[in-house]
């Protein structure tokens, strides 16, 4: 049977795929049919009746959005009957519509304006009193102006069908119909802004930029979001060199036009008044703002002095994993080649290196699964209960797989899965939820591995590996695994069977593993689990490690780690540099004398006391950042960097997709893109023979840097997708596979505390975005209502968290949430870094990743001081 259908539209033959809607076929034939409720992302609802067409042999006009094409169909989209019907519908829509286009933020990109222009009458036949609604709001960021609403329900349907938050619904009847919010629960609305984006009129608009622009004044630039590793394409819209709005065109990018709260409402950080705008030197008698010329001279002279005095190895550099590939490449080149030190690291050290290093070791590549693989999979094993919060758009792909393919979702996470949590919380959607105790994800990996080994491991598993794995698990009983993880043998068997039997299974790994204790080893064990499950080496299967930073993958691939040269080539083990923590230790010892920190603020990300002492021990601290931080306060030289919105370059997202950034505005103040700063410094520090032009200007553009970087890469570096069989067999031969007997983790009388991410924040940058701070701007401890009741805690009451080592502890307010399990606490990290001082810090034995996201604490009421 042919999958093609030929029909006639306005006398023209059109051949389209079977199942195409008439409205889409007409578009291909060059006849755009006016519409409001139709949207390619949504199921047809045929409620606006604007897209009526005449179809031969059908007595009534048909809605072209809901009618599928059929062979030999004859369609008229502009016959007299059709035009008359469209005029009628338009008259109905305009009847009650207010004449407030001059002050409506949608004006200029309003479908009602556009189609009224085409199909509306010159005069209004409506001579009655208009029905009116009071203006109201969906939370702090969304304005609802129902007088403008055309009741197309795109917002409601988008929220239901795409986001899965079900926050909106229809209220009232007839001409009093309106869109209402049912947001009574925590996170019922995710503030993704999707309803605003999809509204064809000005019924739902952003309060963040109300009346700030007319749409045609906005300069639009397509770029990549820097709030997480999802790699979403967004359109930065600027008025007068200031980002005023963000959107994402339907269907574009890895995100196909969907955004999260951070992407949509988080742009305020870019033009924030706190941005560093001029280079700053910290002199004995005070701070001095200087020109770039002066700053470059000073920086290069000071670095040269250190190298001359102590040798090149006295210099170290750390760059943020939110910097572009070009920046990281030039930075490591500056460190390794120009200065000659091997001490170079990046923010990928905070966990993502565990994934890239383990996966390349086992499979020869970390490009193992794409979003398409997730969407088309029939079973997803997700070690990331907080995926909606950390990587909201990748989580949408999971939801899409569930919705479209009835994919089975298995989640492994300490969070509760109950319905009362919130609807888009992934464990809530799980077919099977393995609710582990906090920090015991690796026991769950062990349980699943054992269950598959004892059933039927994939026949493609290398024999050597299989034998080693069997030996490794042989002495461990399910009872001991259950004692540690809280998951029974039968639960493991059920989940294992589900994943093992999937036609296309994808394993997704988040921060609970990557940033957990011994994350590298856990990742190796997960890779092995994927192999014995048969979910590797076949199309549509694979592993996707989730990245918190926008360019963690790229930072490593560009050589932003002591163990990796560009292209993930292993560096010389004889001359291996220090990683981040080692550099801090070396600074404390006085071995490293100069540190160059780019977008990194170790005083926040690592134990403060130790780092402060180390940084104060340095002779030279150079900080390059967007905002003043605790660390820039200690620096001798502070260089103002441009944000992602002000520069060209490339990010590599967690799938390994390399995507281009484009500057939407000029650099804020006198800031410069990172790559440009490194390029100039390289020129100044380079003693080798150079043409005068290179000496003076360095690289002329980010593209020129990229060309150079690509030349430095090994063959096939970015095109190799999917496991290399030869790498796997080498790994199988050499691997040392061992399992420790899992330990029982629960500590009686104490709470398991987990620090994690909020949907509304990512890193420090988001805390400068007013849109996001409106949603969350203060730390809070999430506690299960039962626990709160047991301890008779009121909502918002301050409590004290303490440990044996830190009796004074810290004080924070509590908020009840059924998302957290009883006996566990959750604190969002963005406003309460001090909470990390309560948690033990473990350092990964292979990768040196600092893990300090969870631990055991005592919670006590604060007795009212007698005053």
């Amino acid at each position: 049977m042919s999958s093609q259908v030929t029909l006639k539209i306005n006398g023209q033959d059109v051949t389209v795929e079977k199942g195409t809607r008439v409205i889409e076929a007409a578009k291909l034939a060059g006849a755009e049919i006016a519409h409001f409720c139709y949207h390619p992302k949504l199921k047809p609802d045929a409620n606006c009746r604007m897209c009526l067409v005449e179809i031969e042999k059908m007595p009534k006009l048909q809605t072209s959005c809901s009618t599928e094409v059929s062979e030999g169909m004859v369609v008229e989209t502009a016959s007299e009957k059709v035009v008359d019907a469209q005029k009628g519908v338009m008259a109905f829509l305009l009847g009650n519509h207010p004449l407030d286009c001059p002050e409506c933020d949608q004006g200029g990109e309003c479908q009602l304006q556009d189609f009224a222009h085409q199909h509306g009458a010159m005069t209004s036949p409506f001579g009655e009193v208009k029905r009116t609604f009071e203006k109201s709001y969906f939370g702090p960021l969304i304005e609802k102006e129902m007088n403008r609403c055309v009741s197309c329900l795109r917002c409601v349907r988008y929220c239901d069908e795409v986001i899965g938050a079900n926050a909106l619904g229809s209220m009232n009847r007839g001409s009093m119909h309106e869109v209402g919010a049912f947001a009574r629960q925590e996170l019922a609305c995710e503030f993704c802004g999707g309803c605003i984006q999809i509204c064809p009129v000005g019924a739902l608009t952003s309060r963040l930029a109300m009346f700030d622009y007319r749409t045609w004044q906005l300069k639009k630039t397509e770029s990549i979001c820097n709030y997480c590793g999802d790699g979403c394409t967004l359109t930065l819209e600027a008025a007068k060199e200031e980002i005023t709005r963000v959107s994402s065109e339907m269907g574009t990018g890895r995100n196909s036009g969907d955004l999260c709260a951070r992407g949509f409402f988080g742009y305020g950080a870019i033009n924030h008044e706190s941005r560093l705008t001029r280079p700053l030197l910290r002199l004995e008698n005070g701070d001095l703002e200087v020109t770039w010329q002066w700053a470059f001279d000073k920086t290069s002279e000071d670095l040269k002095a250190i190298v001359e005095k102590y040798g090149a190895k006295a210099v170290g550099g750390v760059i943020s994993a939110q910097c572009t590939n070009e920046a990281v490449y030039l930075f490591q080149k500056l460190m390794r080649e120009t200065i000659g030190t091997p001490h170079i690291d990046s923010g990928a050290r905070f966990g993502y290196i565990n994934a890239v290093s383990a996966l390349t070791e086992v499979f020869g590549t970390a490009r193992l699964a794409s979003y398409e693989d997730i969407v088309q999979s029939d079973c997803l094993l997700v070690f990331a209960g907080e995926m909606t919060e950390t990587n909201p758009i990748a989580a949408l792909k999971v939801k899409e797989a569930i919705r479209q393919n009835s994919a089975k979702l298995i989640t492994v996470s300490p969070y509760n899965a109950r319905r009362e949590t919130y609807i888009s919380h992934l464990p809530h959607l799980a077919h099977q939820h393995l609710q582990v105790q906090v920090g015991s994800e690796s026991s769950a990996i062990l349980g699943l591995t054992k269950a598959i080994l004892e059933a039927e491991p994939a026949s493609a598993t290398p024999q050597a590996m299989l034998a080693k794995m069997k030996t490794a698990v042989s002495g461990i009983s399910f009872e001991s695994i259950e004692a540690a993880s809280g998951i029974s043998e039968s639960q493991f068997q059920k989940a294992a069977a589900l994943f093992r039997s999937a036609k296309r299974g994808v394993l997704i790994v988040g921060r609970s593993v990557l940033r957990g204790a011994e994350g590298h080893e856990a990742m190796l064990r997960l890779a092995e689990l994927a192999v014995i499950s048969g979910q590797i080496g076949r199309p549509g299967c694979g592993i996707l490690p989730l990245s918190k930073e926008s360019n963690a993958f790229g930072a490593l691939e560009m050589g932003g780690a002591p163990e990796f040269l560009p292209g993930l080539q292993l560096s010389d083990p004889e001359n291996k540099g220090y990683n981040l923590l080692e550099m801090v230790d070396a600074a404390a010892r006085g071995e490293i004398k100069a540190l160059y920190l780019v977008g990194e603020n170790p005083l926040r990300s690592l134990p403060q006391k130790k780092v402060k002492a180390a940084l104060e021990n340095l002779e030279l601290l150079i900080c390059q950042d967007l905002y003043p931080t605790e660390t820039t306060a200690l620096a001798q030289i502070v260089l103002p960097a441009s944000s992602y919105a002000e520069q060209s370059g490339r990010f590599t997202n967690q799938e390994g997709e390399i995507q281009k950034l484009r500057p939407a505005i000029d650099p804020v103040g006198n800031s410069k893109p990172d790559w440009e700063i490194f390029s100039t410094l390289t020129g100044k520090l380079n003693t080798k023979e150079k043409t005068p032009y290179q000496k003076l200007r360095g690289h002329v553009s980010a593209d020129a840097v990229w060309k150079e970087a690509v030349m430095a890469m090994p063959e096939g570096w970015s095109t190799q997708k999917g496991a290399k069989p030869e790498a796997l067999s080498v790994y199988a031969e050499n691997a040392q596979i061992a399992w420790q007997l899992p330990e029982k983790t629960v500590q009686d009388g104490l709470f398991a505390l987990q620090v994690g991410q909020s949907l509304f924040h990512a890193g420090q940058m988001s805390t400068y975005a007013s849109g996001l701070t409106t949603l969350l701007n203060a730390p809070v401890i999430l506690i299960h209502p039962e626990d709160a009741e047991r301890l008779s805690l009121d909502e918002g009451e301050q409590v004290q968290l303490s440990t044996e080592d830190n009796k004074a502890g810290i004080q924070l307010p509590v908020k009840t949430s059924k998302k957290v399990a009883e006996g566990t606490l959750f604190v969002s990290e963005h406003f309460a870094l001090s909470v990390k001082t309560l948690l033990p810090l473990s350092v990964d034995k292979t990768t040196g990743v600092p893990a300090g996201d969870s631990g055991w604490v005592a919670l006590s009421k604060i007795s009212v001081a007698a005053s």
Partner: protein
Amino acid sequence: MPKYELVLFKNMAQSGYTGSFTDYKKTGGYTAFEKVLKEGSPANIIDEVKKSGLRGRGGAGFPTGLKWSFIPKDHVGPRYLCCNADESEPGTYKDRQLMERDPHQMLEGMAICCYAIGAATAYIYIRGEFDLGAEILEDAIAEAYKAKVIGKDIFGSGFSLDIFVHRGAGAYICGEETALLESIEGKRGKPRIKPPFPAIHGLYQEPTVINNVETLANVPHIINRGAEWFASIGIGKSTGTRIFGVSGQVNRPGNYEVPMGVTVREMIYDIAGGIRGNKKLKAFIPGGASAPMMKPEHLDTPLDFESIKEAGSMLGSGAITVMDEDTCIVWAAMNLMEFFHHESCGQCTPCREGSGWVLQILRRIEQGHGREGDVDQLLDLCGRIEGKTVCAFGEAEIGPIVSSIKHFRAEFEQHISEKGCPFHPNAALSMAH
């Protein structure tokens, strides 16, 4: 002594009949169901119903047997029967009487239908305001379970059936079959786009038959007395009896069961006792609020599907509303539009916006603020609603408006030119609420 033989009302016409299971059983109740379970095949039942010519009593008059035969034979998974007891058409109150006075008659009909279409679950979607009816049905279902005429393995046949009562929440639109399905599913009651039709994708996307109470109540009689007997009642393609609910300015308003084909004249002047106070007939609605109005010249039209349709209206739910010479037609049209505007679900543009717009114009005319061109605009607006809505509600709401203008245009013009209502001089005051 009634002139015509009663079928559906026969039991309840006996003095002392309570509608209990015992009473129903005494009249031969559930023998039809037992008979089909023991002897009849589903295909035979559907054939028999087809042969009887039974047509839907809810309003559209779709052939019942044909509807049942649309359920895919080879479908794997559940099928459903939904009994539409959301009787909300103004002037219609026949199903209420059938449910309250003889609930087992319709339950038996449902059971037979379920067996014929292979459904193991049936829902009765009953209008929210019918407290008593819902209570009676719940009791009757409990009795039926107890007597094992529904439940597991009925009469040892292996056939099982569960019946549930689902109460509506007060929306007229939920009587529209697909809105009814949405409502049972727990969603906002709004009509679905068709196709797909409920016979293929109905309740929970499974094949579903939706039948009216009166339609299902006829089924046991067809099984017991045969399709030929049923087809011999009525005229032409309108077979069987029909319960007509007469209301308005007549001497004896009420539900009357008569063979289809009696004339309107007989119905109003004979059976319902004529117009109150010997006033003259001005207009009547033959089939519920959404049926176009008719005039005295149509009095000799037989009350069957085809004849009424030919005369420009529809038999609909069989609710005959009589208006005498003192009735203001503009007021009547406005009153009906108040209802339709209130009940428009708001889903699709023409109905949502059109109902409010039309109502505003009618109110103005009645209050004496009519403008030249209003009548044409009303017709224009109705034309812009007709055929362009998601469901049949659009046609329903314009029916009374278009027909009242067609038959009584002069009265509308008079309201406009005289700037007031000749029947209600104080209309503007009385409507100032």
